[in-house]
């Protein structure tokens, strides 16, 4: 196990470095000059040139990159062109909110999807199964914009149960979690259902039934354990994706997450902030993937030997 973690951490460093180089290169090649967005149109060219000099934009690309990475290793993620604040402050103010949202959405989706998927797989052809297929299709087709606005209309405007925006109340997390969680729940439901149907048709299940083991035990102790691995994979990937990609949900609910910050940084060509967010997000994603890999070895001990 220790060797697994060590090996993965070493490769994680290379992954994160690779992401930072690619991100840096793409930003350098993308059209757009930050000074056009920092200074008004009325600023003369001499001022723009001076600002470019101050921001180090005239230095050669490799030099700029090495300077940036050198500072990162010292714990300095640079300063935002737009906000004039250290990027680390901006990012770590927002990241916990995004983590909270992604985690809530994930837990909600598992709470819905696992029981529903198991039921649908066990009671194939029943009303529950039909509903789960309908839910699986609908949930993945729903636009988060539409769903979010509908939830606000129902639960805030009509029922006055939940706050329509912000993160000041503990209740504020509910609707954004549903908005983000429903598509994930739909995906996991379909995955769980399909997995259960496959596993329940296996010979060893027939054998356990023949031994007189109860249905409940067959489902949860024997069948479901074989379905968990793909679920964990999907949940891990989606969770990592939600960390950086929940911008739409955050915009609708004015949720103070990193998605909005990221979108604004790209909009403003705020190079240091974009690079720092990418660095942090890629690190988070790598750590999530590592956690998923470790989780595999607990779920299926056979994997411990093969992975180390």
């Amino acid at each position, binding site marked *: 196990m220790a060797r697994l973690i060590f090996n993965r951490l070493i490769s994680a460093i290379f992954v994160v470095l690779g992401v930072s180089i690619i991100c840096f290169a793409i930003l350098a090649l993308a059209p757009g000059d930050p000074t056009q967005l920092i200074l008004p*149109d009325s600023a003369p060219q001499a001022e723009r040139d001076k600002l470019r000099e101050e921001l180090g934009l005239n230095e050669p690309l490799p030099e700029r990159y090495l300077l940036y990475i050198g500072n990162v290793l010292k714990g300095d993620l640079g300063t935002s062109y737009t906000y004039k604040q250290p990027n680390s402050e901006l990012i770590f103010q927002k990241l916990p909110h995004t983590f909270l949202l992604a985690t809530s959405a994930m837990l909600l989706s598992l709470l819905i999807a696992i029981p529903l998927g198991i039921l649908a797989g066990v009671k194939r052809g029943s009303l*529950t199964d039909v509903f789960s297929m309908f839910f699986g299709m609908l949930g993945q087709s729903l636009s988060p914009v539409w769903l979010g606005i509908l939830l606000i209309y129902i639960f805030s*405007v009509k029922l006055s149960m939940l706050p329509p925006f912000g993160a000041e109340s503990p209740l504020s997390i509910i609707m954004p979690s549903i908005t983000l969680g429903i598509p994930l729940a739909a995906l996991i439901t379909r995955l769980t259902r399909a997995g259960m149907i496959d596993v329940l048709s296996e010979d060893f299940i027939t054998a356990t039934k023949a031994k007189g083991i109860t249905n409940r035990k067959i489902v949860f102790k024997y069948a479901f354990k074989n379905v968990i691995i793909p679920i964990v994979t999907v949940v891990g990937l989606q969770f990592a994706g939600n960390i950086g990609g929940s911008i739409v949900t955050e915009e609708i609910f*004015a949720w103070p997450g990193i998605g*909005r910050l990221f979108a604004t940084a790209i909009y403003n060509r705020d190079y240091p902030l974009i690079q720092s967010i990418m660095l942090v997000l890629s690190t988070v994603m790598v750590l999530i993937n590592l956690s998923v890999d470790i989780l595999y070895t607990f779920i299926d001990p056979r994997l411990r030997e093969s992975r180390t």
Partner: protein
Amino acid sequence: MKSVKVVIWLMLCVMVLSACSGGGEAVETNASDADTSQDTASEEEADTEEADTTESSEPIELNIGWSGDVAHWDPYNDPTVHQYVTGYLLYDTLIAQDLEGNFIPQLATEWSFTEDFTEWSFKLRDDVTFSNGEPFNAECVKTSFDRLMTETLAVSTEWKELTDVIVVGDYEVKLIFSGPNGGVLFNTAMLPMLPAQYFAEVGVEGITINPVGSGAFVLSDYEKGQKMEFTKRQDYWGDQSDFDKITFYIISEGTTRIAGLQTGDVNFAYSITPDQFAVLADNPTFAAYELTGTMDQTFFGVKCDEFPFDDVRVRTALSLALDRQELVEQVVGVGDIATSCFPKGCLGYDESIAYPARDVALAQQLLEESGYNGEEIVLICPIGWYPKMQEQAEAMIAQLSEAGFNIKLEMLEPAGYLDARNVTGEYNLFFTAMSQPQGYPNVFLTQRVENDANLTGYVNEHLNSLIAEARLNADLDILQGIYAEVNQIMTEEYAPHIWLYQYAPLSVYNADELVLTDEAMIRDGRFHFENIEWVGGN
């Protein structure tokens, strides 16, 4: 297993029943959620009692659903409208303008200037303190103006001729310019004054995070991207606002701002589209305010040094083929058509100067005469800057195609758009809007016409001489005459811009609690939120 099924079905039933319940009525405003620092004004007891004229027990709050955040709190270096509007709460300027454009005292009590406009003197109030207790005096003015000379700032371009600031006495300063500058009063009316001692202690970094001003409010709470909360100063030198607290909730989605209004979490929702307002139109609790006094006009920038717009007949045809009225009524939904280059209320506006009415047949004739045969014209538009940008562009392209124009639309994200417009000049037409703050078009004309910052290639020496002449004058009547002539030339030349419509953002507010009067408006159509009247209970 059965219990799980029951729970799932129950949840579904609740959602379906709720969705099917009767609509069309606004929900009574309720106390907002569990944030104890926020007391909405529409508590139940306020509905039946008159406002208590003695000390109220509940703070009176203005909660605004606002569309965006400041970049930071340095008023000299954040050119966004968010900074502009919130700056009025935090800071004062030396002078201000009333709705007619006349200059009125604020922190300065009187002012004078030399005949050649190179020296400007201001006498200051002696009864003003900043929110940290520091007194306002001539040193504060010097500190403020010195920044313009020593730093590269967003506002620096209007002050590039400033060479010195002399402290004549504790409450008198003199500004020295290297050349004539007729726009000093206009620009001064938009420059907040900073506290000298505080700035010396904390520097730019300090005021970027913790602003201190002499205005009627202090920034009491700020959560980046979430809310900006301002609390009234009891020791403010000027008129007190009705509100004890003004909070801007940053909600970029307009539908959510409307929802916040319906739930009572906000009592003012800024920048709502007409179709969003339609949800509330039948509810007498809510009223819409169309900011018709804005100096925002949208326009096409025209590449005048390349085919086909190097020919005035083609530029004329473009304007003749546009149906501005249809654009405003059917697509944008608010505002008014642009009749010429300057909006009503701006210096240079003259109702006798106007674009001719739409005439597609004449446009076709002019295109034929010019030799334009349907060659592709590239129109660049920015994504995310203006509401319904794609719809607007498509509507205009459809109108123009009736006359024979062949236009290719390129929707570009902002950085790419600015690159094409200001750096490479790779366009035939670009769409944008311009505000003339305080109704003084000098900055716009100097940069976009005289200096051609958008690379239109249009050169008119007589026009440039008029623009330069205007900079030498501070008299409003003389400026009106000069700018009217500028307006005439640019309107007749259809260059370097063809103006489309005057934008009037719609705001919606709770009419049971708020009254908007002229006092709440800034001359260029923005809001003095602190001057909105409170008529709700307490």
